[in-house]
């Protein structure tokens, strides 16, 4: 198994000529639950999107498990931010989670029995089995996040990118999501999570990436979460 899950080499990203990320270099260890922390506009989401190829990088290189991202797409799962989806779309929780199988069986029309089993199992894992036939607009924010997480589970990825999965969700959902993330980590998966709640970082996460347009630091939570570094992260650049 690879030791390095994600490697960035002097990554630069611009939005309309304004630098969002500058000279980001780091090697994220595999098998860890990593929080990405920084103030609003620090480029946390942009970092995820650049890694996933959703925004263009200006310079630098990105590898996942030692390979260019294009070659390992089947091993990547992404849980987008809550607002980024059309909630009125005619899609039920089942269909949403089933989407996790699309890469493997892209030309199938109906869900096979084994696909259905996988979907049920993932929904059980996030405690959403009762909402199978719900249209997604009839879910709370926490339930939506859990449904998207279930889709990521079905993908059977090795590295997970989650953009603020805890934003605006109820305590029960947050607990469920965290539990699922820990289970994944215990199974050797790598998880990068954009996170807002500073208090829970040191208790719930193994490592932390502090960014504010540049990399402030990356390392085990205990070492990185010092008042000095946090102050430096949240200082206006």
């Amino acid at each position, binding site marked *: 198994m690879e030791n390095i899950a994600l490697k960035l080499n002097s990554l630069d990203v611009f939005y309309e000529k304004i630098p969002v990320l500058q000279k980001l270099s780091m090697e994220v260890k595999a098998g860890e639950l990593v929080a990405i922390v920084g103030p609003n506009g620090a480029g946390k989401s942009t970092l995820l*999107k650049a890694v*996933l*190829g*959703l925004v263009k990088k200006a310079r630098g290189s990105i590898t996942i498990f030692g390979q260019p991202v*294009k070659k390992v*797409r*089947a091993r*990547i*799962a*992404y849980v*987008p931010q809550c607002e*980024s*989806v*059309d909630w009125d*779309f*005619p*899609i*039920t929780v089942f*269909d*949403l989670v089933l*989407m996790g199988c*699309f*890469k493997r*069986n*892209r*030309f*199938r*029309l109906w869900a096979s029995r084994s696909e259905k089993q996988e979907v049920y199992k993932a929904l059980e894992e996030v405690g959403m089995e009762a909402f199978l036939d719900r*249209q997604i607009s009839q879910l709370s924010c926490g339930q939506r996040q859990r449904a998207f997480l279930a*889709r990521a589970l079905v*993908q059977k990825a090795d590295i997970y990118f989650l953009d603020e999965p805890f934003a605006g969700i109820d305590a029960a959902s947050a607990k469920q999501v965290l539990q699922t993330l820990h289970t994944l980590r215990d199974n050797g998966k790598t998880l990068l999570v954009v996170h807002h709640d500073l208090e829970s970082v040191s208790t719930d996460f193994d490592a932390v990436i502090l960014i504010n347009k540049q990399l402030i630091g990356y390392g085990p939570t205990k070492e990185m979460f010092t008042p000095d570094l946090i102050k430096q992260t949240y200082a206006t650049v």
Partner: protein
Amino acid sequence: MQLFDFLTDPVLRGPTIGTMLMAVSASLIGVLLFVRKRSLIAETLSHATYPGVMIAAACGVEHLSIWILVAAFIAAILGYQTVELLQQRFRVRTDVALTFVLASFFGVGVTIASIVQHTHTSAYRQVQTYLFGQAATMSDHHIVIYSLLSLLVISLLMLFFRPLFAATFDKSFSRVVGLGNKGIEILFLLLVALSVVIGIKSVGVVLLSAMFIAPATAARQYTNKLSTMFVLAAAFGASSGFLGSYLSVVLSKPHLSLPIGPMIAIVASGFALISLAIARMRRVFYESLQRS
């Protein structure tokens, strides 16, 4: 006249089956447009085909020829590319770009039409029916072409259902897992253009967008599942095609001829209106249940 005669009678079966096939492919693609919130594309592309049809007429192409369809197809693709160009290079808003292309392409078409009217009078007479459609002149020859094209649309849709679904609902997901975003966008355009081209003969450039919008709108009121929505929309489309053809024959009197195209558009819109009303009544009913 029996209902069933419309599918077997040598004179009636051409227009009836032809319009039903047209309606099914338009309704299916209409669902894609509906969930993408881009229903206006159908309106724009159908109008954009008009200069293509007219140029084909100016080149002396017979109105039964498949070259009319090819010219219309090319014009529709050009129209779409212009919309994309305006949006991406010139930063024009989507609604503006779509309306602009609709008006300018159609304007060019009408201008060419007035020239062709004098230079190729007989070709013009045949081709100008594409404006409001003329299903009644469809022959078995048309059924074959339309069946093949509709079959192509339906099978592409079934084959690529999953990638299309993913790219429509969650673009970033489909890009991240690598379900082929560029390819899917090209396929989407191909499907829209194809179904527009299938439609202009029977319903016409001006009314065609009704066949894209109405069945999808009706279908959406009964389901929260995309797959079911496709099936329902196809059913609404096919029934509109059949009923439209039927009513146009049955209601026409010696001194009054009701063309098929507008009848189909009216029937399809009727389905949509009734479905919207049913959905509203259901909402009101459930709300009153919750209150009591």
